[in-house]
């Protein structure tokens, strides 16, 4: 019974992980082009990443965009989720709820194109602002989902309990609601950050001048050269993601185990 179960699990895992492991292996290959199986061993391509200025700049641009967009998305999600969670009898509640998650269903490329049009028409020019707005729109449904879910799981009674014991609404929220949705907060922020970091088409349509996000820099590089530098960079990004998730798990995850 057990052996077929493990065999299937292993097969599934390997299918899922192959696309992630392949660039990892290729990134150490001596070959000048992307070839599989990799030949020899070198760290040259990793060094190469830092020779190409656009990557470092792109990483900083992407990170700042992702950071700002997640921050804004979470800041907007919190009050929106709060209203939906407190007012169970709100009219058109279902409609409002789906409205907030709608951008998730919209093809990103369509959204990007419309935003580009909007940016030209309404603001005259694409700028950091339009890029940020685009990213916020794309990531907000993810933040909203996580935060709304953690609020709903918590239930409204504990806030009412704190109020009945003498705290006003705002401080009751700070005292007893916020500490208990911390995980949703961190989880939501991380999800937003990752989604924004990976939102290629929004960046592609709305990036401008110097502010070239990392995925765009990578695409540009690939058009010129076909060496394992991109594989090495991908490997670094995988490590970055894993480290980030791990850090979150350590900080928030541990707290949850104490309780």
């Amino acid at each position, binding site marked *: 019974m057990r052996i077929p179960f493990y065999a299937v699990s292993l097969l599934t895992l390997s299918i899922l992980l192959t696309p992630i492991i392949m660039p990892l292996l290729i990134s150490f290959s001596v070959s000048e082009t992307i070839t599989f199986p990799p030949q020899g061993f070198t760290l040259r391509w990793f060094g190469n990443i830092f020779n190409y200025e656009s990557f470092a700049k792109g990483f900083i641009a992407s990170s700042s965009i992702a950071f700002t967009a997640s921050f804004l998305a979470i800041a907007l999600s919190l009050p929106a989720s709060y209203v939906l969670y407190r007012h169970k*009898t709100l*009219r058109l509640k279902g409609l409002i709820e789906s409205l907030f998650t709608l951008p998730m269903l919209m093809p990103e490329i369509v959204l990007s194109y419309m935003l580009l049009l909007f940016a030209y028409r309404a603001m005259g020019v694409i700028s950091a602002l339009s890029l940020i707005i685009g990213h916020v729109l794309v990531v907000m449904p993810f933040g909203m989902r996580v935060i709304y879910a953690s609020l709903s799981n918590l*239930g409204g*009674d*504990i806030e*009412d*309990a*704190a*109020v*009945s*014991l*003498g*705290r*006003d*609404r705002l401080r*009751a929220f700070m*005292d*007893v609601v916020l*500490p*208990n949705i911390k995980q949703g907060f961190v989880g939501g922020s991380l999800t937003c950050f990752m989604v924004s970091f990976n939102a290629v088409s929004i960046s592609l349509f709305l990036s401008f001048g110097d502010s070239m996000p990392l995925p765009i820099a990578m695409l540009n590089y690939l058009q010129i050269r076909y060496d394992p530098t991109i594989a090495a960079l991908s490997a670094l990004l995988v490590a970055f993601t894993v480290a980030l998730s791990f850090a979150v798990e350590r900080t928030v995850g541990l707290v949850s185990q104490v*309780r």
Partner: protein
Amino acid sequence: MKYLQLKGIWVYYSKQEPVLKGLDLEVDKGELVALLGPSGCGKTTTLRVIAGFIIPQRGNVTIEGRDVTKTSAHKRNIGIVFQSYALFPHMTVRLNITYGLRIRNIERGEMENRANKIADMLGLQGLEDRYPSQLSGGQQQRVALARALAIQPDILLMDEPLSNIDPKFREKVRAEIKKVQRELEVVTIYVTHDQEDALGIADRVAVMNKGLIEQISPPTEIYERPKTSFVADFMGFENIFPIQLVTGGEQPSVTVRNVALRVEELDRDGKYVALHPSKLMISTEPKPNLEEIKGKITDKSFKGDRVKYFLETALGELTVLSSAKQFSIGDDAYVCYAPGDVLVLRG
């Protein structure tokens, strides 16, 4: 002057049917009143109006003569035990219990004193450093009660506090709540949909229906003498029939489906007649001094010390709860009753 007064409370949301329709309620000092009713009758809304979470569109709430209708919930000094207990998961038992005291800036020694006293009273010693998730359901419930009582509330509100307790322990917990409530003499409003729960704990039971209190009386009175068919139905009067005709004279009676039922007192305004299954007897022949109705047993269900029989009679279906176990389905039998047990209701 009554301790707590609700006068003409109306609550409605937009175009829907009002939740409370001019509800009145008066509670004396130290009293425990149970609000009993089916879901949607407005009992929880009444609780939330008293708590201050809902401001009624019309009517007012007074506590010891002070009008608190518009007072914010956090300024009312009302303790609440929620159905979900609503303990703060990130705080220990001690921090949960002292939460309200810390807000009131009570001096440390006094605070510990009060917290210890209340913890002792509810048997929570030794659990002070645990988190709510490390407690059993019954313990969580006691912490919720301790937290609400620690602030020495003017009024204690309890929303279905026993619904998450194992049925085996309900009676014990109910007795515990009653004991603490008596000891502290705190005015308590206790919401429940369970008839047994309400009758077992309350000084007075208020049966609610569609946003109004239909009857408020001490448990024995409301059980024995319900005033309306709705209350009677809630108290387990399974045999309720509309009255066609009221006849006076030497032997007053009411007529249901062309069958005359003897009654003790005449009430010309009677609309329904109610017979409690446990007040009826089942017998093979008529009994002296009792009235009888002939019927045929259509079904029976075993209830332990008693058997519930369903009979087809000229009145319609009658339910009888009897200790006689020898009757079987299909038997012809007489349902006997004393005229004094025939309850005539006006609504």
